[in-house]
């Protein structure tokens, strides 16, 4: 079965999570750019930090990890 895309709620959760803990900033510059988006790079960075499979996409395992109770200090040095 095709993997179901993340829900809007999960998308919003991921946005907040990556901003808070992985220093995701607002995308600036030209709308289209070659190579993975900042958002995809930040998802990969988070997946690497937690030893998950690095896909750059919001798969179920990644969203589950984002929902776990945790410390509010960022995982990367700002």
């Amino acid at each position, binding site marked *: 079965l095709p993997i179901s895309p993340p829900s809007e709620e999960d998308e919003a959760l991921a946005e907040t999570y990556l901003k808070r803990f992985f220093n995701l900033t607002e995308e600036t510059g030209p709308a289209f750019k070659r190579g993975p988006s900042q958002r995809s790079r930040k998802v990969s960075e988070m997946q690497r930090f937690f030893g998950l499979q690095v896909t750059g996409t919001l798969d179920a395992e990644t969203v589950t990890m984002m929902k776990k109770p*945790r410390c*509010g200090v960022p*995982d990367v040095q700002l």
Partner: protein
Amino acid sequence: SRFTTFDNRKWQTNQVTYRIENYTPDMTVAEVDNSIERALQVWAKVSPLRFTRIYSGIADIMISFGTRNHGDSYPFDGPDGTLAHAFSPGADIGGDAHFDDDESFSFSSTRGYNLFLVAAHEFGHSLGLSHSTDPGALMYPVYSYTDPSTFSLPRDDVNGIQHIYGPNTDVNPKPDKPDPTPPSTPNACDPTLVLDAVTTLRGEKMFFKGRYSKSCSLDQMFSDLCNTFSVPADSQVWALYGYDIVPGYPRNLKSLGLPSTVNKVDAALYDEDSRKTLFFVDDNYYSYDEAMKRMDKGFPKRVDEGFPGMTSKVTAAFQVRGFTYLYSGSYMFEYSMRTRRQLRVLRNNYFLPC
């Protein structure tokens, strides 16, 4: 990379003060005081840092409970999610630790979040430590419950704090009782690793060692399971449906039909073809008929009778694509259940991503 900040902030003195500004209604004042003090001692034990409580004025580490917007630029988010945060060493808000009072904090029970564990983590930040990627470390960002009464600061955290402040230089007042060795997270690729158990669940293979499964600590996976592990778990059995404990468990091993002489099972294996579950106990094994829901007669048998060549104790067992794998020590023995022939002897990290 162990520092929280790029400019490697740390306290310039080993004498650090702290002050508890307010309290959570979830616990008594004495319980909060005790949790905070024990959480600081976790770090004092392995470093030259010494903590003094003050009751007025500005302390290095100001400790407070608040919700949502609580006076800094990092609002809390209500129940669950973010539990607390702390600031790296420095003046003013530097070193301070804030706890989200929309959480339910507890003293010793497994209800809610254990304040001692959350505080010990946050004080790591107050001293200058960043998060760790080691899932068994206290400084791992995700909360995981461990019994506070048996808590021992993991090796990764000891290395981190000693990287910043050095070791505890006090002479151990009880040389006959050396401090426990800091626990290390098992290394899946350590060729000498001896696994406690293996299983498959929904197409995944899981490898257990101590309180860990392959990539994360058990309590992050089976949270309500580990919380009840405090009783001796050997002679009990839990049933899980997916990741949830089936009501009515744990039960005693005898409920499976094992004789009362058996109080520990070394490994268990479900054979898809025969629909029987094999229980390995020392040099013997029992067979349980899942269809008939009873132990098979004529057991126990010696392991090497059912699995020729398997002369050492089986510590873990599972089936993958019709082959049976018996773990013993740091080796894995592959068998065909149909012919009962031993096909290969493999290292026990054969299935692990090494």
